């Protein structure tokens, strides 16, 4: 389903839409099945990350630590992507952090639902990603308990599969050698395109994407490597400044 307008499109509503999409696709009949099928599917993308990370020059161990410790896919891809394009460490860190800011908004949604303290709150924070939040919100018709289960099972499931597949991808890429010879250098931008695609639901959002691409291409010759990627947040600020 494609919403025709995101006129009132706060991130919260976007999540709720994402959740509905998961539910409406009738992947499964109950919360556990919803959670595990999302976890396995999304976790398998870890192969792409492991391969991209090794292709960017990170070791297998570093690639695995990324998935264990950073554990938010788009940010991980961004960090290794900026490093691969010759960017400075600060640019890689900034790009990854900016991409992770949506998790803050997910946390604000999940905290009142989960009502946990101490170690469990720290665990909940680490598992706060697109998928755990999306599945939790999609379980709303089944009640609060189902929402909580959806969050924990999806979050834990993605964590397990994402890390297993990262290791497999990293080992695979290491065994393959020259990234270009196996198309890994194209697989990384294709992965970014695949992450971008489901977000382009309206002409406005497609316009933001197109403007960002042109902007990045135009400023790249003038800025140090890696910085153009961060600089495109200017486009996001420009388009998001005024209410639509």
């Amino acid at each position: 389903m494609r919403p025709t307008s995101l006129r009132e499109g706060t991130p919260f509503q976007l999540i709720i839409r994402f959740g509905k999409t998961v539910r409406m696709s009738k992947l499964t009949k109950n919360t556990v099945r919803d959670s595990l099928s999302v976890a396995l599917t999304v976790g398998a993308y870890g192969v792409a990350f492991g391969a991209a990370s090794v292709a960017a020059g990170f070791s297998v161990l570093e690639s695995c630590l990324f998935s264990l410790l950073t554990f938010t896919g788009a940010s991980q891809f961004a960090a290794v992507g900026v490093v691969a394009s010759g960017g400075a460490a600060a640019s890689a860190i900034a790009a990854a952090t900016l991409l992770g800011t949506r998790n803050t908004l997910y946390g604000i949604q999940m905290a009142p639902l989960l009502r946990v303290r101490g170690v469990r709150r720290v665990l909940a924070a680490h598992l706060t990603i697109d998928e755990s939040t999306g599945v939790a919100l999609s379980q709303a018709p089944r009640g609060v308990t189902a929402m909580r289960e959806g969050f924990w099972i999806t979050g834990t499931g993605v964590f397990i599969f994402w890390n297993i597949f990262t290791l497999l991808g990293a080992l695979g890429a290491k065994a393959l050698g020259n990234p270009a010879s196996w198309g890994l250098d194209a697989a990384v931008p294709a992965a970014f395109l695949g992450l971008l695609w489901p977000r382009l639901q309206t002409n406005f959002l497609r316009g933001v994407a197109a403007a960002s691409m042109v902007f990045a291409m135009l400023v790249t010759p003038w800025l140090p490597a890696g910085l153009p990627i961060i600089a495109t947040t200017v486009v996001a600020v420009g388009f998001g400044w005024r209410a639509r």
Partner: protein
Amino acid sequence: MWAVLGATSLLCFGIKLLGHVVPEPWLANPRLQRVNALIPISLLSALVVAQGVMVKTHVVIDHRLAGLAVALAALFAKAPFPVVVVAAAVTSALVYHLH
């Protein structure tokens, strides 16, 4: 490398935790939310360009663009994510070796 890994992990966890401990009204500013919703789109778009058609500071059209074109076609055909990535890799590798 280790600095990127350490700082990225620390900051990404920090901003996740922030959402769980900060009272909602603090981040409820509509402008902040609008911009925040657009940031992933801008950054991912820039990353597609940086990784797909740039080498250092120059636009370079090579085998990667062939891979990206196939990825785009696969996305239009509603192919799942792994298919998109593998199709791009196979196409790019073929063009790389034929060239």
